[in-house]
């Protein structure tokens, strides 16, 4: 009877079992049961350790706020945390993460894509292990390109030409849509133009955003709307889902978006099923195509009482076979390069296996502990440039001034 009662008590009691690991993460895409099965496999492999996973709100900003408040308050209530690619340097600088450099000794870090490894490195130490990866893609309408005899564009200029030609002949179809609302997604979009023109935001810890290359790239984005008219003005308020709906209803030739949209387009009943292709994003300079890196990393709370057990879970979840399982069951894209040659994955998820080229070229947003402050400067300035309130030159001059001010904070 006693055992029965104990068994019935909720797992979230104040008295935490000494060997219960708490794993915090955002909502799992797809079927949660599949993810649960993976955690049970970990428990089987590690007798004596149980894992309780706790899901945070799906908004990335809210997750960030949760961690900042709880980690600043030195909360030991969770052990393993899942972090967006832009948070690691900030959390590491604040002293909230355990140094995990010893988990990837020697050259093991080279098994992973370089982008995420760069993003989890702060002052030459690793503070998290890349778990799954994301990056910007160019979606295009295979059927329409074939109909008018075009191949997927390699440069931005080619994209403009193709989009103009097709949207002038197909009624009610936009040329090219992307995410231009004042939010983090806009920064992801703009950086892809900067990088593919040889520009950047920070270099050696200094702001270099006010450059000829960047002014040109940002001006081109504005021109897409006003001069070439291949992008409708509605992008200045569009997020991922806005563009996904438009493209998914067959109302655009090209779209910039993340890989998640693919599966939705390919489900039964989708108007664009079987009509879609993806490619690397176009570029201004030959060979400079760049995607903004997204994805999630696993780290360990500095105040965790179970660091050794937590390390086991991080290693387990980022192991090749676990990443493969997650790719096959819920479509998470592995961070380990070798898996993209895996026979099973190629057969079951050919789309994912084909993304190798994109991920190897994916670049991380400015790696800085002050990124959340820097992006708060970039978002309104970029928005001002694409909606025509300020010229690109004015916007970037103002951004550079403000970013330099932020970087001086430690003086």
């Amino acid at each position, binding site marked *: 009877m006693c055992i029965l009662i104990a068994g019935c008590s909720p797992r979230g009691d104040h008295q935490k079992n000494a060997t219960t690991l708490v794993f915090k993460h955002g909502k799992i895409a797809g079927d949660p049961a599949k993810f649960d099965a993976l955690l049970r496999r970990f428990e089987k492999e590690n007798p004596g350790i149980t894992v309780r996973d706790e899901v945070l709100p799906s908004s990335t900003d809210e997750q960030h706020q949760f961690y900042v408040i709880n980690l600043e308050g030195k909360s030991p209530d969770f052990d393993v945390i899942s972090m967006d690619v832009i948070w690691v340097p900030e959390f590491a600088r604040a002293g909230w993460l355990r140094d995990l450099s010893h988990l990837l000794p020697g050259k093991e870090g080279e098994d992973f894509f370089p982008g995420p490894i760069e993003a989890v490195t702060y002052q030459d130490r690793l503070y998290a292990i890349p778990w799954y990866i994301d990056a910007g893609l160019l979606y295009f309408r295979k059927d329409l390109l074939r109909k008018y005899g075009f191949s997927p564009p390699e440069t931005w200029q080619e994209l403009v030409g193709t989009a103009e030609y097709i949207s002038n002949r197909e009624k009610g179809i936009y040329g090219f849509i992307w995410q*231009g*609302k*004042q939010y983090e997604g806009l920064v992801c979009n703009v950086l892809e133009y900067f990088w593919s023109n040889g520009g950047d935001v920070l270099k050696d810890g200094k702001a270099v955003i006010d450059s000829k290359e960047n002014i040109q790239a940002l001006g081109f984005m504005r021109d897409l709307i006003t001069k070439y008219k291949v992008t409708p003005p509605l992008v200045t*308020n569009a997020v991922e889902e806005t563009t996904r709906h438009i493209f998914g209803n067959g109302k655009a030739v090209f779209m910039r978006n993340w890989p998640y949209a693919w599966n939705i387009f390919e489900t039964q009943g989708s108007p664009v099923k079987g009509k879609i292709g993806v490619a690397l994003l176009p570029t201004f300079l030959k060979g400079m195509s760049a995607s903004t890196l997204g994805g999630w990393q696993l780290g360990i709370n500095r105040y965790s009482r179970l660091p050794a057990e937590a390390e086991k879970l991080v290693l387990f979840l980022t192991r090749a076979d676990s990443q493969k399982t997650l790719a096959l069951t819920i479509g998470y894209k592995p961070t380990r390069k070798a898996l993209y040659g895996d026979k099973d994955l190629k057969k079951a998820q050919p789309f994912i296996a084909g993304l190798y080229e994109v991920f190897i070229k994916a670049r991380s947003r400015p790696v800085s502990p002050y990124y959340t402050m820097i992006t*708060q400067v970039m978002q309104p*300035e970029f928005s001002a440039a694409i909606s025509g309130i300020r010229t690109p030159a004015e916007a970037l001059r103002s951004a550079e001034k403000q970013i330099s001010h932020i970087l001086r*904070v430690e003086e």
Partner: protein
Amino acid sequence: MTGRDSGNKFVAPALMLLLLVTVYPVFSVIYLSLQRKLLIFDISKFVGLDNYVFLLQDDRFWNAMKNTTYFTAASVSLELLLGLSIAMLLHRSFRLKGPARALVLIPWAIPTVVSAKMWEWMYNTDFGILNYLIGSKVNWLGDPFWAINAAVFMDVWKTTPFVVILLTAGLQVIPRELYQAAKIDGAGSWDIFKSITLPLLKPVILIVLIFRTLDAFRVFDAVYVLTGGGPANTTETLSIYAYKVLFQTLQFGYGSTLSVVVFFCIGCISIFYVQILSRDMKR
């Protein structure tokens, strides 16, 4: 004398409580505003008036000030005009007066965040009902000119009912005899409105203005959910800017400076209105 003494003793606990929950936080925010403070990186330095000097040169602050002022002036004046008209209409006797009054209240009863989300969809360029009805492709929330006005319009839709309730209550206490007497004297309806309704409604109108101006000046949730401050900060109000600085980028020092300035503005507005109101009462 003794009566006054014991009176002081009676209010002492309440005063202590007030000191604790209002005066102490206010002073601690003012103290914070004089520091450069990044809590999570253990950066904390007393910098005197540096933050205030930076604020004076901060284009983003002045932009937020401009947006807030525009939002407040536009929404409050529209709400007052509309609210007054609707209140006058509802004050007349007609069938279904009860249900009509209840219906007017609906927008006020919906939680702000819900109505903001609702409007976000209605303003949608491609799928929104607004563009469908007028047969256009206006980029309501993405166009710098429309976005702030879209926010004003939503606020007017949401808060006019509040103005209507207060003004209806005010209208009900105006003695009917005054109207009857005026009619006998042959006054037209404009004269009656100008010389009876408006003067007698003035205290209520002032109270409406106080509530609405202060609320509009501090507006946060409605606009934050609708646009997040975009495009290009054309809808970023002072409260949204302060929130971003305080809670998204965790700059407690400068964020507090912004809050102090908002507090100061609100203080000035309140004093202004209270002055008018008390002058009005004395007469």
